[in-house]
C-alpha cells in the first residue's frame, strides 16, 4: 500500500477525500431536510419530539457529530488546497478568457465552488451557534417533551424566520446550497473514478434533482414559516 499521507496528498487522493466527505454531507442534508419537514406541522410538539429523539440517541449522536465535523474539515482542507493550487499553477492569467462550451461542464456553479463553499462554512457556524447553542438568543426557549425539560427548538425556529431579513438571508444561502451541489454531486462521482457511458448521464441528472430537492426544500421551509405557518 502507498503510505496514506502520500496517497491523500496527491492530486487524485485529495479529490477522492473531497468526494467521499462531500457525498456524506449530501446524505446528511437529505436526513436533515426530511427531519425538518416536521416544522410544517402546526403543532410544535411534533418537531420538538423529533429533536428530543435525536438528543436521546446519546453516544450515536456524538459519533455522527464527530464524523460530520471531521468530514467537513477534510472537505474544506482539500477545497482550499485545490483553490490555492490553482493560483500556484497559473501565476500569470490570460488577458482574454472565453469558456469553450460544447462538452465543457464549466457552469457558474462549477466556477464558484470555493466561494459558495466558504460562504456555506460561515453560514454553518452561524446556523449551529444560533439553533444548537442559542448564541445571541436573549430569551429562554423551553418546553416539556416526554417529561423532560428541553429547548423549544420549534418556537426558536419560528421566531427566527418571523424576521423578514433573517429569512431572506437564509434563502440566499439555500440558493448557494443548490449551486454547490449542482456541480458537487456528479463531480464527486468523477473524482471517485466513476464514469460510465450509461450511468454518468443518470448520475448527472440525479445531481440536478438532488441539488434542487435539497436546495429548494430548505428554501421553502423558511418561506412557509414566515408567510403561512405559526402557532
Amino acid at each position, binding site marked *: 500500500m502507498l503510505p496514506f499521507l502520500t496517497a491523500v496528498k496527491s*492530486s487524485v*487522493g485529495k479529490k*477522492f477525500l473531497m468526494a467521499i466527505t462531500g457525498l456524506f454531507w449530501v446524505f446528511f442534508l437529505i436526513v436533515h431536510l426530511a427531519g425538518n419537514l416536521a416544522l410544517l406541522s402546526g403543532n410544535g410538539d411534533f418537531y420538538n419530539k423529533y429533536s428530543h429523539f435525536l438528543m436521546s440517541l446519546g453516544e450515536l449522536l456524538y459519533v455522527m457529530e464527530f464524523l460530520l465535523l471531521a468530514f467537513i474539515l477534510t472537505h474544506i482542507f482539500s477545497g482550499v488546497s485545490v483553490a490555492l*493550487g490553482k493560483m500556484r499553477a497559473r501565476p500569470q492569467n490570460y488577458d482574454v478568457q*472565453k469558456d469553450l462550451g460544447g462538452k*465543457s461542464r464549466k457552469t457558474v456553479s462549477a466556477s464558484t465552488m470555493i466561494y459558495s463553499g466558504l460562504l456555506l462554512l460561515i453560514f454553518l457556524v452561524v446556523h449551529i451557534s444560533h439553533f444548537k447553542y442559542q448564541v445571541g438568543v436573549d430569551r429562554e426557549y423551553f418546553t416539556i417533551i416526554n417529561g423532560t425539560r428541553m429547548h423549544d427548538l420549534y418556537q426558536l425556529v419560528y421566531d427566527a424566520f418571523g424576521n423578514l431579513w433573517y429569512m431572506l438571508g437564509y434563502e440566499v444561502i439555500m440558493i448557494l446550497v443548490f449551486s454547490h451541489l449542482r456541480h458537487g454531486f456528479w463531480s464527486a462521482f468523477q*473524482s471517485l*473514478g466513476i464514469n460510465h457511458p450509461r450511468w454518468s448521464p443518470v448520475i448527472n441528472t440525479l445531481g440536478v434533482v438532488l441539488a434542487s430537492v435539497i436546495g429548494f426544500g430548505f428554501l421553502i421551509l423558511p418561506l412557509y414559516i414566515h408567510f403561512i405557518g405559526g402557532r
Partner: protein
Amino acid sequence: MMNKTSERPNMHLHLKIWRQLNAAAPGKFVSYEKENVSPDMSFLEMLDELNEHLIKTGGDPVAFDSDCREGICGMCGLVINGQAHGPRRATTTCQLHMRSFNDGDTITIEPWRAKAFPVVRDLVVDRSAFDRIIQAGGYVSVNAGNAQDANALPISKYNSDLAMDAASCIGCGACVAACPNASASLFTSAKVSQLALLPQGLVERKERAINMVSQMDLEGFGDCSNYGECEAACPKEISISNIARMKREYVRAALTSA
C-alpha cells in the same frame, strides 16, 4: 496570397500578440495591423506573413511553435481570443483557418499559460514537463526474443477502441492551457489509459498510475476540478472518462501496491 479562391474578400485584422524575450523577462502585448488576410489562409500562414513583413522591415519576428501543420504532431498551440487552439472545436491551431474570423476583428494571441509550461520566447512554451510524465511510466516491458504470434493476445474491440481513443492524444498541452486550474489530468490520464486498457500495459499497471500521477503533481500542474474545459478544448476530443480511469488506476494501485 493573391490567389483568392474564397468568395469572401480579404480581411484587415488587428492582432494583439504576447511578446516575451525569455522565461525571466516580463512580457507584454504588442499590437500589429495585418492587412490583406485571405480567409483561406491557415492561422499559422497568417502569422508567417506577419513575420515576413517584420523581418523585411527590420522588426523582430514572433516566435511560435509548429511542425507538421496537418494537425497530428501536437507542436502548435496558441490561446486565440481566450480559447486554446482558437474558436473551432476539435481543431489544432494549424488547422484553424482565417475564415473563422471577420474583417476588422481584434485577435488576442497568448501562449499556453501554466507554471509548468514556462515561456521560452513569445508564444513558445517549454512542454518538457509532459516528457517527464511519460518517462515516469508511459512505457511497457517487452520480452526479448522472437516476435509473438499475431493475435496471441485477444483484446476486445471495445477496449481496443477505448485505448485507441486515448492514444490519439498528441500531447499539445491544450488541456492544461484550457483548464482553469492548469491541470494536466487529461493528458496524463490519456497516457495512463492507452496502456492500462491493453494486456501489454498490465505489467507496470500499478507503478505507472502512481509514478505518472506523482510526476504530474511534482511538475506543478493544478488539481482537477472536473470543469471539463480540457475535453472541450482537446483537438482530439479525448474524453474526461479517461481521467476517471486514471483515478481508478491510482486508487487501485495505492491500495494494493507493495
